[in-house]
């Protein structure tokens, strides 16, 4: 088993005719992902490597029975593309685009709450179920089938930790990069909950970083709801404090949250060992299995 994506995932690539869209569509197909359609408004009727291109997502869904999309649309149009995807009742939308304006995402977030669709990202590397499907830009060759779930806010850090696992022969059920933007679709808690409910996932790696309170909330969730063991990593212990002006952000978040210390101690309190290095995280996982 796995979470969110598998062999039955039928993918439409939004922005398939762009440079990145085209390149990563090939990579996804090579990995074995079932890419059934692409969209590019005005280019309906064309094809990319034999994959049919439609003007709209609704047409792609209707004609090719897609149930998931990957968004490679440039930042200025990305939110509109996500809205379009959400309008078609897809099960999953993975937004890779980096640099989507935050207020656009706040509106997307509102719309998301009205649907049953899962959004991953934006500004994320995507999701992969090794051996079955890859939706996004993760380098497929570092992953291996197995029984460890992984969820991370950072793209390249995900790759690092995965390679630490794979090198030891520890494979993954599913790995998800949830993205580091202020507003994202799938949170740590969402992913952890899905891993907890997946009988094939025997342990979970959670890679956080400084800022926000998502890791603290995840710690709370783990303590209260999870039997599956979790090991953590938090990037940014030595990060310099940003130069801030204005008080609004601090009032909302409070001064004590968002630091590496706060996150690490929250996780430790929840019984989650936090590695000092990515390799140490792999040590903890090895102990669990």
């Amino acid at each position, binding site marked *: 088993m796995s979470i969110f994506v598998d062999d039955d995932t039928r993918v439409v690539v939004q922005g398939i005719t762009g440079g990145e869209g085209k390149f990563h569509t090939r990579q996804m197909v090579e990995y074995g992902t079932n890419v059934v359609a692409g969209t590019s408004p005005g280019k309906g009727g064309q094809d990319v490597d034999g994959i049919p291109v439609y003007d709209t997502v609704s047409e792609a869904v209707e004609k090719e029975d897609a149930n998931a999309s990957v968004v490679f649309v440039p930042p200025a149009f990305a939110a509109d593309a996500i809205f379009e995807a959400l309008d078609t009742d897809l099960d999953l939308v993975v937004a890779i685009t980096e640099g989507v304006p935050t207020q656009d995402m*706040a509106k997307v977030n509102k719309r998301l709450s009205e649907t049953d669709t899962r959004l991953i990202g934006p500004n994320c590397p995507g999701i992969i179920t090794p051996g079955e499907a890859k939706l996004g830009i993760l380098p497929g060759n570092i992953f291996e089938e197995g029984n460890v779930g992984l969820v991370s806010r950072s793209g390249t850090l995900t790759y690092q930790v995965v390679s630490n696992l794979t090198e030891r022969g520890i494979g993954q059920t599913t790995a998800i990069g949830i993205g580091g933007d202020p507003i994202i679709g799938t949170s740590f808690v969402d992913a952890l909950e899905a891993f907890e409910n997946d009988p094939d996932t025997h342990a979970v790696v959670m890679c956080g970083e400084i800022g926000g309170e998502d890791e603290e909330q995840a710690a709370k969730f783990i303590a209260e709801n999870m039997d599956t063991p979790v090991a953590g990593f938090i990037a940014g212990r030595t*990060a310099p404090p940003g130069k801030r002006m204005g008080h609004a952000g601090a009032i909302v978040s409070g001064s004590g949250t968002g630091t590496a210390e706060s996150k690490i101690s929250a996780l430790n309190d929840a019984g989650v060992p936090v590695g000092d290095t990515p390799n140490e995280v792999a040590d903890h996982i090895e102990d669990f299995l």
Partner: protein
Amino acid sequence: MVMKLHEYQAKEIFAEAGIPVPESHLASSVDEVMEAVDEIGYPAAIKAQVHVGGRGKAGGIKIATDEAEARQAAEDILGMDLKGYTVGKVLVEAGVDFENELYVGITMDRNEGKPVAMVSTEGGVNIEEVAEETPEAIAREHIDPAFGLHPYQARKIVFEAGIPRDVAFDVASFLSTLYDLYEANDASDIEINPVMITSDRDVVAADAVMNIDDDALFRHDDLAAMEEDSYEDELEAKAGEYGFDYVRLSGNVGIIGNGAGLVMTTLDLVDYYGGTPANFLDIGGGAKAERVANALDMVFSDENVDSVVFNIFGGITRGDEVAKGINEALESFDEIPKPVVVRLAGTNAEEGMEILNTDLVQVEGTLEDAVQRAVENAQEVSQ
């Protein structure tokens, strides 16, 4: 990340939207300050225009009650170093005779995924302490971004905050205007602290904070044009030109990587293995050879750097492009200025390793080994 507007810029925008601000003039010389106070009269505030929090406490704001004080304040503040920034401009502003200081602000609450408006009667420089110690003194209201701030919401938090009844509707109207500005300009934060209630029971914006979401600048040419370079040092200015996420630190191990999380982790490991990071430098995703070369150039330009670690785990970034860039940068030197440790993994890493000129760099297979070696190099060089 955000683009910060100066107080004088934010106030221009606020004033245009109908929020009362004190009379003021921008000045960049003592003579200009004196002209300004001549026009405005006394008392006048002379306020450094730099992107630094806590200006007041750091001596960047002075009140002058006569010509001598004004000249003294201008001389003191213009050209002063404020937490690393040199003050080039001051705002000369009419002093306000106030009875109360309120706080009004709007920011994005990332936990809720929606903006939040805040109002307090305890405005002023200590608002963060108020938030910490008596959070109930700050009324908050989340905003549905599809609808915007409803008038009833503006009234609701103003009444909840206990704003005096005679100015309640004025403050609610400030809030509505601020939200309109927040949305129209893709602000990340917008804040008036303090809003002053004058002895005539007028409300005036005595300060103005407005930060813009960098990612939305593409649709705000007017705001983008307001960006003023005021980097702490020439290296940060250079990083700005190159478009790198760069922060200068005080250590001696130069760090280059792709992706914020991985670069942060590299910093953490340098620290973990006993070294001190000289910088944070993220080349971003999908960097081409030239960008890689620029990154090396940046780090070599920092005279504190004794050793460099180059850590790439490619997703969109391709190992062959990185290797090409490293070769280009290093082959231009007669002698490599500082030892460089390279660790390449991920997309096209093997191709990269074939291209990489290993006469010029040290290669390590794992992140941990690469960092350890760079820390050792730095220790050797600095001895």
